[in-house]
């Protein structure tokens, strides 16, 4: 009898810890949302709730800033980058998983090694070099770099290795071309892995800050994070408007996360545990 009570006590303690931590992780979002619903004058010495919620900050966000344009830019960049990553990385991962060729091991190590290079080592001349290539202030400068990346190729290789090779061999006997085998046999069966890579890549691109900050030079080409950070840097930041923009920028990410959390966590642990 006594033992049961102690167990319940510790279980209760565990739940209290978990609930407290969950409150700590959720509260900043709550604070951001209610701040976006406040009038400017009510931002100071605030309360825990909003008395007269107003949408004026959202109206200002869409009329007085270029937020819609930034949102559009971010969307175009994130979607195109993700599509390219899916194509290049599944193709590369397939080659490493299912073909034998000279230099395979060394080339694979080289690709993995590229993960170790921090962006900071080349960031200064990147600006000069990309202006020579006429890429500065274009979508391409955020779409192309990293569209064939080590993480994606590694993830795809891990997954494709688990697929039996017989299907490919029989397709070859039937006279199927190498690209058709990839396109018609491999692609359909690696959908779960593509799902994980999609979320991961989209999140990364949507949230990417440094490259967009450096390579996008005019207001109409900013992405959402760069645009918001420019608003923070203004003389008197309009926090209500900022919170409205921040809240809207988080919505797509949270929707994707809630819908695809299984794939996200599976992809993350596949990459981490196997590495």
């Amino acid at each position, binding site marked *: 009898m006594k033992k049961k009570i102690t167990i319940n006590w510790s279980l209760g303690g*565990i739940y209290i810890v*978990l609930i407290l*931590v969950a409150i700590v*992780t*959720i*509260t*900043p*979002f709550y*604070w*951001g949302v209610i*701040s976006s619903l406040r009038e400017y004058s009510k931002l*100071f010495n605030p*309360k*825990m709730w909003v008395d007269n919620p107003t949408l004026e900050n959202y109206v200002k966000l869409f009329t007085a800033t270029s937020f819609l344009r930034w949102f559009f830019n971010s969307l175009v960049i994130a979607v195109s980058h993700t599509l390219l990553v899916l194509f*290049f990385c599944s193709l*590369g991962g397939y*080659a490493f998983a299912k*073909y034998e*060729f000279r230099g395979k091991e060394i*080339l694979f190590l080289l*690709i993995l090694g590229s993960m*170790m*290079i*921090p962006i*900071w*080592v*080349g*960031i*200064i*001349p*990147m600006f000069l*070099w990309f202006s020579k290539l006429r890429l500065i202030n274009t979508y391409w400068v955020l779409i*192309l770099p*990293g569209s*064939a990346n080590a993480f994606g*190729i590694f993830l795809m290789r891990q997954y494709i290795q688990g697929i039996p090779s017989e299907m490919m061999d029989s397709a070859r006997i039937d006279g199927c*071309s*190498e*690209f058709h085998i990839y396109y018609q046999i491999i692609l359909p069966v690696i959908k779960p892995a593509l799902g994980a890579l999609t979320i991961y890549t989209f*999140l990364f691109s949507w*949230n990417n800050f*440094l490259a967009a900050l*450096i390579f996008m030079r005019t207001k109409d080409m900013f992405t959402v*994070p760069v645009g*918001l*950070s420019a608003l923070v840097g203004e003389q008197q930041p309009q*926090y209500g408007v*900022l*919170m409205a923009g*921040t809240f809207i*920028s*988080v919505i797509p*990410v949270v929707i*994707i*996360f*809630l819908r695809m959390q299984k794939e996200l*966590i599976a992809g993350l*642990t596949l990459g*981490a545990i196997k*590495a």
Partner: protein
Amino acid sequence: MKLSIKNAPYIFIAPFFVLFAIFSIVPIFYSAWLSFYRVEGILSPPKFVGVNNYLSLFQLPRFLNSIRVTFIFTVSHVSIMLIIALILALILNLRIKERNFFRLALFLPVVTSLVAAAIIFKLLLSYDMGLVNLILRWMGLPGYDWLTDPKLALPSIVILCTWRWFGFHMVVLLAGLQNISQELYDAAKVDGGSSLQVTWYITLPLLFPVIFFCIVISVIGSLQLFDEPYILTEGGPADCTRSIAMYLYDTGFLRFQLGRASAIGYVLSVIIFIVTLFQIRILGKQAGFR
């Protein structure tokens, strides 16, 4: 050209190498070249100065300060965050019914962008608009200038980064814990081990490779700290939060000292490389790497 089983794999991996050459290799070599030149502004002609850019860096108090800031941040952030992540992963690994709900709630900060998180925290920690001071005042304590007090600015950034990232490491550690076979626990229980003993002597050593992975990647990330101080404190007050990367940005993109900034890029990369190598040497053996 027709694809055959011989040339197909080369064509399939070619995109990586073409893009890598254009977007990484060229800038890396260009940067090495620049780091031996004195370049003031984009239009002025570069002047060869040898290794002077590197040598002079180590006499610059602001640069040395940025190294100090970066290391203080890395050590405090990584240790605090991983201890929290580990404890929560151990808790969630108990058979808790609502595990999925909590895993979801605690992972949410990971998917929000650093910029969004930093902006929210800027408001949260603000002196007269922030929730943190509101709560402190409720409890009868004074409010603090979290972002402009030299003593509190870096801790504020540690708080933000820990909030943003602990869920990621918690999920990775939880996956590692679920890979440990249940039989080992049962055997230990039969032998009369208490749950704390089992955790300490069995779970943690078996989990160490995963912990090691978390340490290595979070250290690599922390040494490149940039987004959070850029938004939250702009490196201030008085350079208290100016990390190496912040200093590089300042030197290259605001002062246009391109040669010196390139040298900082190389020094930062060498620091990351040495620290990672050091960890593999010291901790890697226990983790079963070589």
